[in-house]
């Protein structure tokens, strides 16, 4: 049977969140040029994040970090068949409009770039393209979802190669969700106030025990073991920024993190892919950082 020319709907919450569902169990890799994008795709990345500098270089260079040059994004789109994401500054809806016009598959409203608005994030509901946003705790995650985010990632502390902040964010979000699940109906109103999150979303999380959108992990993931760790802590996929192309052998590191993400529960496979990998990125102790990217956004 052929369905007659029936009305089709684009940009619904289901198709926007649905793409995030398709990325689950996968690795999204930061790439700065088409060559790196090809390496990422060859290694089995589910998507690439196109940006001009990886977070560790943004951190080193300082200055204002902005959306990437559209030409560079288009070159990466032409180089690979997997989804291409790109970053807009927090609150910079004009950058987001450009990224949508470029047909990127996901926009990351990212604290890795310099925020453009100190009070407001982008109203993401008005866009057809879906958004991912970072969060350090459940309240922040639910505020972003209320603004239309279709995927939440931990913020971690990007560009450090240190997974400690991502672990903190995941543990915080999960602990706060468990607290909601054990609360009675009356308590949810006070908890919503504490979380500074909409009551309806708080009630939804309490009823389902999980976020209404997928939860991925980002920030500081540098080894296959890091990927296994955050997946076991409840992340459904990982973003790897500087961790691949700042390592000694990016091709092997990329493949190893992909396999560790799939087989995160099987220590024998994670061991096998971790063996003889060469040096991971050098990394930084987060306590000594001058700029804490995770504190951007609210």
């Amino acid at each position: 049977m052929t369905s007659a020319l029936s009305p089709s709907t684009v940009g619904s919450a289901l198709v926007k969140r649905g793409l995030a569902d398709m990325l689950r169990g996968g690795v999204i890799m930061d790439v700065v040029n088409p060559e790196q994008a090809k390496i990422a795709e060859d290694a089995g990345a589910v998507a690439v994040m196109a940006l001009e500098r990886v977070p560790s270089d943004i951190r080193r260079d300082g200055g204002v970090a902005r959306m990437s040059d559209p030409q560079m994004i288009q070159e990466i789109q032409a180089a690979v068949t997997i989804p291409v994401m790109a970053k807009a500054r927090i609150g910079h809806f004009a950058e987001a409009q450009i990224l949508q016009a470029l047909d990127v598959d996901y926009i990351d409203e990212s604290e890795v770039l310099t925020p453009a608005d100190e009070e407001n994030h982008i109203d993401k509901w008005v866009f057809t393209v879906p958004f991912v946003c970072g969060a350090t705790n459940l309240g922040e995650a639910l505020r972003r979802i209320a603004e239309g985010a279709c995927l939440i990632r931990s913020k971690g502390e990007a560009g450090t190669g240190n997974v400690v902040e991502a672990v903190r964010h995941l543990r915080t979000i999960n602990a706060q969700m468990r607290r909601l699940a054990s609360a009675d109906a009356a308590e949810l109103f006070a908890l919503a106030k504490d979380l500074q999150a909409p009551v309806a979303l708080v009630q939804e999380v309490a009823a389902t025990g999980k976020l209404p959108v997928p939860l991925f992990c980002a920030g500081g993931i540098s080894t296959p073991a890091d990927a296994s760790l955050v997946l076991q802590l409840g992340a459904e996929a990982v973003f790897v920024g500087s961790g691949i192309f700042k390592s000694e052998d990016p091709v092997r590191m990329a493949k190893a993190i992909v396999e560790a993400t799939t087989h995160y529960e099987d220590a024998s496979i994670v061991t096998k892919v971790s063996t003889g990998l060469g040096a991971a990125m050098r990394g930084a102790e987060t306590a000594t950082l001058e700029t804490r990217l995770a504190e951007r956004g609210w």
Partner: protein
Amino acid sequence: MRAVGVLALQGDVREHVTTLENLGVTVRRVRTPGDLNGVSGLVIPGGESTTMSRLLMTSGLREPLQSLITGGFPVLGTCAGLIMLAREVLDGRADQWSFGAIDVTVRRNGYGRQIASFETPIDVLGSGTVPGVFIRAPRIVRWGEEVVVLASHDHGDGAHPVLVRQGSAWGCSFHPELTSDVTVHGLFLDALAEALR
């Protein structure tokens, strides 16, 4: 009935597991060749076909699955899963391979990039209307005589099949697992039970 497997290398595995369990089936997640022992059919979920094809090789699942599928093992693939079951794949990577169980040619992202992803009602032959969720969906652009077309969709440029079957292999361009509708999985399980009888 013995357990039905869901290929759990990457993608929306959980939704397929939930749908099958809602239909009363015991489900096993398949990540390694040993997981195939004792499963009577396999669902290949949505996800990224390039990622899945690589992980099928590194996990050692490609060869055993290929011989099972060639031998008539029941399989259902949705979206990326359809790509994995197709005879021919367009706009893929140069080294893209597939199991070739269904004599169709699919074009990856054949309905456009994410911004063009859409929902539309789909009429399934003999089973009423189901919600169709198409996400960077593959488009079936050629289909052989042995392919049974169970549903088609006209996206403004002529009808193209979106649910097909060849023997015990089923392919679907959209994502029935993302909705609460169990029609497509139910048809697959009915055929699977028939084959086991």
